[in-house]
């Protein structure tokens, strides 16, 4: 550590440039991770708020709730406890003459079931009548107010906003919570349709009758349109960034080590053990990564503060922890690459040069 700190202090520009690069990489990793988590969260926010464990869908719906329709016959054998709720989902365009149009997911629920009971209101009250709806806070940020009337998919019926609810997004679209009866009207012309799905908070819930089939929630989330592709894209980018940072750290430290071989030979001739030199190289890498990542975290914190709410960025403690640990690990691995050269330094080379 002594040698590492002294050298960094003396060679400020050289090590400053390495820190700058580590900062930029870690900043990019934090931004991409926050975006990935933010976007993933907007896909699954509502599902998480329901604490869903199992979902029953029409087996021909390709594990897609918006494609699923469960008939009276499909649901004829079901026994719903307090952990199960019927749900109807359909994509709608919400319009109000004085407000911008919003593409949203209409979720019809029953008043005596847990999805209705667990709604976390930030303003107003729960919907009590068929023409009342509770909407996600995204509507509020777009200027919608309590009492505003929504026209859904151009229908003649108008739905009055009576409450705003938080964490109510599915597949990135804000949710409009209404009644199952309203949902059925929006899915006009389909007799015997009861719901799109049964959501269960019971991990052991299993109902497979007629066209019904039960899926674990993880499988359902994985099949959300675009969800897996989006996450894999982010994971690939973040993975590449780690690989790039590993290469940068390793290459820089290797070049610096090669430039210092004569100094190492001199120190070895003076009896300084190899382990001191190896520890100096590894600790130097750790110091550079820690400083770079701290600056990256500060920059990320500022970025998260100034970005508009419309940017789905979620800078969580898990990202801070995993990003920092990942960079540290990368730095340590990178610093081990020149270690072999350090261990092979011939102290006799210090003589006669």
């Amino acid at each position, binding site marked *: 550590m002594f040698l590492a700190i*002294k050298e960094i202090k003396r060679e400020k520009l050289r090590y400053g440039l390495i820190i700058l690069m580590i900062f930029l990489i870690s900043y990019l990793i934090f931004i991409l991770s926050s975006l990935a988590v933010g976007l993933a969260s907007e896909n699954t926010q509502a599902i998480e708020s329901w604490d869903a464990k199992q979902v029953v869908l029409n087996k021909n719906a390709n594990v897609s709730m918006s494609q699923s329709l469960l008939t009276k016959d499909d649901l004829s054998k079901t026994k719903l406890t307090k952990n199960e709720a019927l749900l109807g989902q359909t994509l709608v365009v919400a319009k109000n003459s004085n407000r911008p149009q919003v593409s949203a997911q209409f979720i019809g629920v029953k008043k005596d079931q847990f999805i209705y009971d667990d709604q976390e209101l930030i303003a107003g009250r729960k919907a009590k009548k068929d023409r009342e709806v509770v909407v996600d806070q995204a509507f509020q940020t777009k200027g919608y107010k309590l009492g505003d009337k929504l026209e859904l998919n151009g229908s003649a019926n108008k739905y009055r906003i009576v409450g705003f609810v938080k964490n109510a997004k599915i597949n990135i679209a804000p949710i409009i919570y209404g009644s199952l009866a309203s949902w059925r009207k929006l899915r006009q012309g389909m007799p015997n349709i009861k719901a799109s799905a049964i959501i269960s908070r019971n991990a052991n819930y299993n109902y497979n009758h007629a066209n019904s089939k039960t899926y674990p929630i993880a499988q359902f989330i994985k099949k959300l349109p675009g969800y897996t592709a989006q996450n894999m894209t982010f994971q690939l980018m973040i993975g590449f960034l780690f690989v790039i940072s590993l290469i940068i750290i390793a290459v820089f430290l290797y070049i610096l080590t090669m430039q210092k071989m004569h*100094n190492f030979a*001199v120190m070895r*001739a*003076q*009896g300084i*053990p190899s382990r*001191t030199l190896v520890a100096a190289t590894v600790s130097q890498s750790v110091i550079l990564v820690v400083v770079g990542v701290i600056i990256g975290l500060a920059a990320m914190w500022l970025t998260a503060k100034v970005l508009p709410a419309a940017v789905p960025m979620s800078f969580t403690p898990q990202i801070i922890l995993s990003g920092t640990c990942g960079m540290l690990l990368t730095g340590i691995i990178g610093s081990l690459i020149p270690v072999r050269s350090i261990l092979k330094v011939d102290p006799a080379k*210090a*003589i006669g040069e």
Partner: protein
Amino acid sequence: MAVIELKNVQKVYGTGAAEVQALKQIDFKANEGEVVLIMGPSGAGKSTFLTIAGSLQKPTSGQVYINGEDIANISAKQSNALRLNQIGFVLQAYNLIPFLTVKEQFELVDHVKKQGNLNQATMDKLLEQLGITGLVNKYPSELSGGQQQRAAIARALYANPKILLADEPTASLDSKNVDEVGQLFKKLAQNYQKAVILVTHDPRLEKYADHIYEMMDGEMIKKQ
């Protein structure tokens, strides 16, 4: 008793047609308080002698005794400890660590050798003798050649070794500085009871030597 003694030491590099005998049946010894000069032209084997005497490499055959202990076949770890505790090197280009101040060069020794280094009072006296008291916070690049030389000597002596090995210590000094350095080595040997071994081709140092060895084609002859 000799602090350092080499008996029948041979060093051979390469094999077959490429074989080079760098040292041939070398016998050498130096005692505490003496300045011993190893002289000879380039390629005579001076540097090879220094690396073997300084435990930087092993001889092909023969014995190397430091304080009466044969070090010819000690482990790398023991060799490290020996160099740290018993042998001080003053290398040709002074070889101070460029990113450490003069004071930090000593602190580096403290980091790896916790005990037995010169105490503050002795160190202050040595620095004063070397004329570098006011330069301890300077980096090597901020020092002149002569000052770097003195700082390197102080660094070599800081761990309080019995033996001081210097490789061409006057290579880049003018005559006035050569005399100063010669006197300094003489004083250090006598005042601090060190065996000072100077490998050089500079005849201006002969007047400060207690013994002179001449090297030629790997062979060593005691001249004085």
